């Protein structure tokens, strides 16, 4: 009789645990399968998958859509990357705003809103980070996913004890084998993230991409925040862009890509192709270690009293200096990325007229005036040929 009772208790406990597993698992399942609408602009030409350039990622969660805007007018070409680290969501939002509003009069523009798609399919581990944020638009609210930094372990596992970067053989942190910005130039038969890097390199090489812009966000205590990081060949255009923007719109630093730091896009993409490689960083309080409660509001507004204290103690590197009255709102970060991109295009056109691209999309002043939601279009009213899900 006692044994029967024991079994009954165990079954009840198991049922409760399975219910908890279902409730938790449902949230994980939802974020993995969440789809983001994108209403492409009138300049849109074609959407294809990155695996068209390297079979190694075909059919995997790392394969990601590429949006092409071809003016038909001979000129230069550029690749704009958001979501290399999806836990830096202003980069993806900047790519969405560009993709939904861009006009291309000369040359070609390729946009990849979620460069590491797999990393977008899970939330950030630890610290009770929110999984989504919501923006107000002209037609209602729109929900966005906040992903993680590295490729989902469901798609690439196990990590090695030491990650040996290919081809430099430099030893890097073990988890960086799932970090898209440590695996360039990649290889066709490597780990999944290396294969993504390789596919992006193949796109750059096969399409003769002239300008490569990789958007990122950084914690305010990271010295490279609010900065262009430029490969040797793109240093001139980035210096000019930095000076122009700093004088006319907002302060942004410029640094040369270190030659001994391997695997990063601003180094390897420039070394292993002919493109002008540029990386940009904005200030994202959400990922700062000293920030207080990590909430959706912090993601949207960037206002945090602990960061204000850190700023007063001179511990932050962002420019302009952090002020809690303004914070670092997401539309400001998107605006910085878009104007930062436009400025390097402008200076590339000056330095290399044969690579000229004539393009238009919302810029810093537009974002500061109208917010980011204003530039996102209603998927329910969109032409079905222009509506995609990322």
């Amino acid at each position, binding site marked *: 009789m006692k044994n029967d009772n024991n*079994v009954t*208790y*165990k079954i009840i*406990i*198991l049922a*409760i*645990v399975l219910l*908890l*597993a279902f409730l*938790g*698992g449902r949230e*994980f*399942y939802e974020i*993995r399968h969440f789809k983001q609408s994108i209403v492409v602009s009138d300049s849109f030409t074609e959407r294809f998958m990155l695996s068209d350039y390297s079979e*190694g990622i075909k059919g995997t969660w790392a394969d990601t859509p590429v949006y092409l805007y071809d003016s038909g007018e001979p000129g230069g070409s550029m690749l704009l990357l958001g979501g290399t680290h999806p836990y830096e969501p202003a980069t993806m939002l900047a790519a969405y705003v560009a993709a939904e509003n861009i006009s291309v009069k000369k040359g070609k523009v390729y946009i990849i809103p979620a460069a590491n798609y797999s990393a977008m399919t*899970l939330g950030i581990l630890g610290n009770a980070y929110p999984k989504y944020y919501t923006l107000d638009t002209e037609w209602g609210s729109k929900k966005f996913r906040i992903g993680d930094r590295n490729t989902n372990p*469901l798609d*690439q*596992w*196990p990590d090695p004890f030491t990650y040996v970067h290919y081809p430099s053989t430099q030893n890097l942190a073990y988890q960086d084998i799932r970090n898209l910005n440590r695996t360039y130039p990649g290889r066709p*038969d*490597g*780990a*999944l993230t290396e294969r993504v890097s390789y596919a992006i390199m193949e796109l750059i090489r096969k399409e003769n991409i002239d300008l490569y812009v990789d958007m990122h966000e950084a914690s305010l205590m990271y010295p490279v925040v609010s900065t262009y990081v430029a490969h040797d060949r793109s240093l001139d255009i980035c210096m000019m862009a930095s000076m122009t923007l700093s004088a006319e719109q907002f302060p942004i630093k410029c640094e040369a890509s270190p030659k001994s730091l391997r695997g990063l896009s601003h180094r390897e993409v420039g070394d292993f192709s002919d493109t002008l490689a540029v990386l940009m960083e904005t200030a994202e309080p959400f990922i700062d270690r000293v920030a207080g409660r990590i909430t959706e509001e912090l993601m949207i507004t960037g206002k945090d009293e602990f960061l204000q204290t850190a700023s007063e103690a001179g511990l932050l590197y962002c420019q302009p200096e952090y002020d809690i009255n303004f914070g670092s709102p997401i539309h400001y970060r998107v605006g910085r990325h878009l104007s930062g991109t436009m400025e390097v295009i402008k200076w590339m056109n000056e330095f290399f007229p044969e690579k000229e691209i004539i393009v238009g999309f919302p810029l810093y002043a537009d974002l500061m005036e109208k917010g980011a939601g204003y530039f996102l279009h209603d998927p329910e009213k969109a032409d079905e040929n222009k509506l995609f899900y990322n």
Partner: protein
Amino acid sequence: MLFLTEVIHQIYFIMAAVFALLLLRGLFKRNTRKTLIYDVVYAYSIIPFLLRALHIK
């Protein structure tokens, strides 16, 4: 190399399923630590292995 990588990757899912089954067996049939609290521990510990085996987390 791609094939080997995939095989190793899949082995981890199989291992997760095996651990989940071992814990399930331990929940119903074990010789030591027979109190109720250990039933809870065994049952609760199944969750991460189950979610991994099902490709959810």
